[in-house]
């Protein structure tokens, strides 16, 4: 019998609606957290996973209350404890690591002081012992030179380092249970892989139980022993990580796993229709009924109970799980990617573009030029053919969005020329651009909450480009709006809706409709799927793909997610610190030989499979500025040749697949080294 750290019995948490109805956010949750176990709680936004994690440390958000059930820690119900008693448990016995460490650290106190504070509160150490302990903790989270880190302020650390400090603070009281709420969501891929690896190490080293809350099945797969899948406030699946991810016997998890783009798959993932129901809207029947491929009549009326399947050691909330049990290895592939027609019809030519964020001096303002020898983005040469999807990939700070903005005319390029349709030069001043070129290039943004005016109806939003570029009005305008909405699979009744009345996926569809209303030749997509849930992400990607087939639109697709990029792009350009590292057809970029940076990125991609571990090749240092001389990746390169990398800009080398790599290492050597790894 394993030792139980926390037991949740029949827990329901909810709120009272304006009409006085009691609405549950969590419905009859029962589970146990065993000692030394890492439990991953996974679900889409609104599934109640964070509410559950907070309840585990006896915290119920303002406006919510416990309807029934208990949360037992050391034979006491922590939900009924008084604040005094909770103070002794929180931080000392149960600690939490928040999503954004940068915001959870006090900005005006030094790191060392903040950890010391945690130690003072949660332990009985004397001052000298605490100092030793601080170094010990910082060492444990693998921060370089703990003494210097302790003297720094939070803003002097990178995102990954801040997250490590948060882990160190949580470990200060040597807790029994560590709750992590999306701890790596805001981090870069390589940093994320390092932090996850650290968490795994700590779990083994200290024997602490962990509860890891995330929407990212890739991250969950790396750290968890057991996974709980939540949907609409209920546990729908609870079992060992391998069973859940390799043999998902609940239709929701089954669909979710199929909708994740993977490096091993070619083409777009299948999408899942619909969205999670709002709390309180499902009165009877299974909450997944509307979206379920396997739904039967009985699912509409009866709600399934959590049922234990002994041969898989898994609990599942579904009547039809046996069907899925057998349906193991069918249709795992879904190659829907449309191959590009090789027209060689150049539509955009970006030649030696450099962009600087340096502030102009007074004289430079007069002369209208910028004197910056080391600009943020430098020397970008890309030619894009009509109907092609080019992806720009890189971590934050790689200049990918900056390039996009300068194509759209929102940022002035310092040097270089952008030509549209072979010979028409696009002015770098938006105001001087011809209206027809403005129409031809449209943008879709990352977060539809920000990119749609909250006070406009869908009709007004989509009408903007139609009125501006085509001068439509009256009935003609309305017909056209309906037509455009139909193309993004939205019905006529959406016309009068405001963005706040739409789900995330619907909002992004409206943003796509607005871009397509201008009949553009090129659409610039800035991380268009990263603010969306996985199941919705797949639907949006599929939509973009279909529209491309219908209209022959060219996409420039910016993303940090290599799996998404692989699914949608024809060609990939990898950027580091505003310099191109590698560019080529997407099949060959994902194959060796690769630029060492691409290799690092590919190694850090998290697959939703506990048996595929990320390869951590380089250190996760964050560089603030691109180096003055030599290769842009010299600071982190695991295959550094020597002095030449620090002084000379590497030459472009092209391999047999048409993949261009900018590296000093000979292309064949690179291939041999990488394959032998």
């Amino acid at each position, binding site marked *: 019998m394993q030792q139980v750290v926390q037991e949740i019995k029949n827990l329901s948490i909810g709120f009272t609606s304006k009409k006085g109805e009691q609405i549950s956010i969590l419905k009859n949750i029962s589970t146990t957290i065993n000692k030394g176990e890492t439990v991953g709680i996974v679900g889409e936004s609104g599934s109640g996973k964070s509410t559950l994690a907070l309840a585990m440390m006896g915290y119920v958000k303002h406006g919510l209350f416990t309807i029934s059930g208990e949360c037992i820690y050391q034979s006491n119900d922590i939900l009924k404890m008084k604040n005094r008693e909770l103070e002794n448990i929180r931080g000392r016995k149960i600690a939490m690591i928040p999503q954004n460490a940068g915001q959870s650290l006090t900005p005006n106190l030094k790191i060392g002081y903040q950890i010391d504070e945690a130690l003072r509160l949660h332990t009985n150490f004397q001052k000298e012992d605490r100092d030793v302990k601080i170094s010990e903790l910082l060492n444990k989270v693998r921060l370089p030179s703990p003494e210097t880190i302790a003297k720094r302020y939070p803003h002097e650390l990178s995102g990954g380092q801040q997250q490590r400090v948060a882990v160190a603070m949580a470990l200060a009281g040597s807790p029994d249970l560590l709750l992590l709420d999306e701890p790596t969501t805001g981090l870069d891929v390589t940093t994320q892989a390092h932090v996850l690896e650290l968490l795994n190490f700590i779990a083994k080293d200290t024997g602490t139980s962990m509860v890891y809350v995330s929407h990212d099945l890739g991250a969950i797969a790396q750290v968890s022993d057991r996974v709980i899948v939540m949907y609409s406030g209920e546990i729908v699946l609870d079992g060992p990580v391998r069973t859940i991810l390799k043999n998902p016997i609940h239709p929701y998890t089954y669909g979710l796993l199929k909708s994740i783009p993977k490096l091993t798959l070619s083409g777009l993932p299948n999408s899942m229709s619909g969205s999670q129901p709002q709390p309180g809207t499902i009165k009877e029947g299974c909450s997944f009924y509307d979206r379920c491929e396997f739904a039967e009549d009985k699912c509409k009326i009866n709600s399934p109970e959590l049922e234990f399947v002994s041969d898989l050691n898994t609990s599942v909330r579904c009547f039809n799980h046996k069907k899925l049990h057998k349906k193991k290895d069918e249709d795992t592939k879904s190659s829907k990617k449309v191959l590009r027609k090789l027209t060689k019809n150049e539509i955009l030519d970006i030649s030696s573009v450099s962009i600087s964020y340096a502030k102009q001096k007074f004289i430079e303002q007069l002369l209208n030029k910028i004197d910056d020898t080391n600009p943020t983005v430098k020397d970008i040469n890309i030619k894009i053919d009509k109907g092609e999807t080019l992806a720009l990939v890189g971590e934050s700070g790689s200049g990918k969005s900056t390039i996009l903005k300068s194509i759209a005319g929102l940022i002035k390029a310092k040097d270089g020329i952008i030509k549209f349709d072979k010979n028409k030069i696009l002015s770098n001043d938006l105001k001087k651009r011809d209206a027809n070129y403005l129409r031809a290039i449209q943008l879709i*943004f990352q977060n539809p909450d920000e990119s749609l005016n909250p006070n406009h109806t869908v009709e007004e939003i989509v009408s*903007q480009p139609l009125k501006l570029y085509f001068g439509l009005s009256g009935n003609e305008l309305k017909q056209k709006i309906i037509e455009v909405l139909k193309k993004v699979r939205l019905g006529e009744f959406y016309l*009068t809706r405001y963005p706040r009345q739409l*789900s995330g996926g619907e909002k992004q569809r409206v943003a796509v409709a607005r871009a397509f209303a201008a009949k553009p030749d090129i659409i610039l997509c800035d991380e268009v799927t990263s603010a969306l849930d996985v199941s919705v992400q797949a639907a949006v990607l599929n939509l973009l793909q279909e529209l491309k087939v219908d209209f022959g639109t060219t996409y420039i697709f910016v993303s940090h997610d290599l799996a998404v990029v692989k699914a949608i792009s024809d060609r990939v350009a990898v950027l580091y610190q505003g310099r191109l590292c590698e560019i080529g057809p997407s099949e060959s970029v994902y194959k060796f030989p690769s630029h060492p940076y691409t290799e690092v990125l590919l190694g850090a991609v998290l697959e939703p499979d506990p048996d595929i571990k990320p390869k951590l090749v380089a250190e996760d240092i964050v560089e603030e500025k691109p180096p003055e001389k030599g290769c842009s990746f010299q600071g982190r390169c695991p295959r550094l040749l020597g002095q030449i990398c620090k002084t000379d800009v590497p030459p472009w080398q092209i391999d047999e697949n048409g993949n261009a790599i900018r590296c000093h290492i000979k292309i064949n050597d690179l291939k041999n080294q990488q394959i032998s790894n």
Partner: protein
Amino acid sequence: MTLVIKQEKPKSTFSKIVEIISTMASRPSGLIGLIILVFHVTLAITSPLYVPHDYKAIDPSLMLQAPSSEYWFGTDSLGRDVFTRTILGGRTALTVTFFGSLIALLWGGALGIFCGLVGGKIDDVVMRIIDAFLSIPWILAMLLIVSLLGTSTIVLIPALGFFYGKGIVRVARAATHDVIAKDFIVSARARGHGNFSIIWNEILPNVRDAIMVEGAMRWSWMLLGFSSLSFLGFGVSPPTPDWGLMISNARGLMSFAYWAVLAPIFGLSSLIIGINLTADAFAKALGIDRSTKAPV
């Protein structure tokens, strides 16, 4: 695909106004404010039709009479009926300050949005000028204007409108700054919309509420300011009844004819309280938390 979201009918402007007013009236403070305000406005519009006495009829034999069934609020030092003068006394003040705050709203809102949008040097210069104006005691400046140009309504309305609009510039600018960084503005720029179109279509719907609430607040302050001017003898000229003027005339006799002072004070303060409560309820109905936004 089944839709979970309830179908909402498009709302007409009228039904939106009805909804806002009913939300305002759902709280006791908002209801009281609305009742007081509606009462005062109705009185100001209709009172000439039913006043019991002539407001300018001087009768030395009736000097400083205590309240009675004939003279409900008594009489003043010239024997005029205080009740009549009190219910007529708000007319000029309400009219002048209502149009004054409209002017304040228009120029303050327009300049604030413009500064917030263009930013940079122009914004800096304009805001420093506004700061400079804020540091001038408004009552001194008003006295100067009034003594140079006279006390006609044509002078008072734009002068008050100008002085009370400075604060609105700041609020409008701050509200514009909140929206300006959002992607829908960037998106509009990238499409090639002009500044005017961006202000009208994208910014205004998002800052309108904040500016209107600020304008409502300014109205009550302006009312107090206007009455102060009248009190000093620079607002309404006698014999037109006005609360500020009435208080000023009767204040020397307060010890034995308190009714002549109390009546206009009650009229003025109830109207200000009414406007304040209404403005607060208006802000809450629109979902704006005034406590987080500094007024000046």
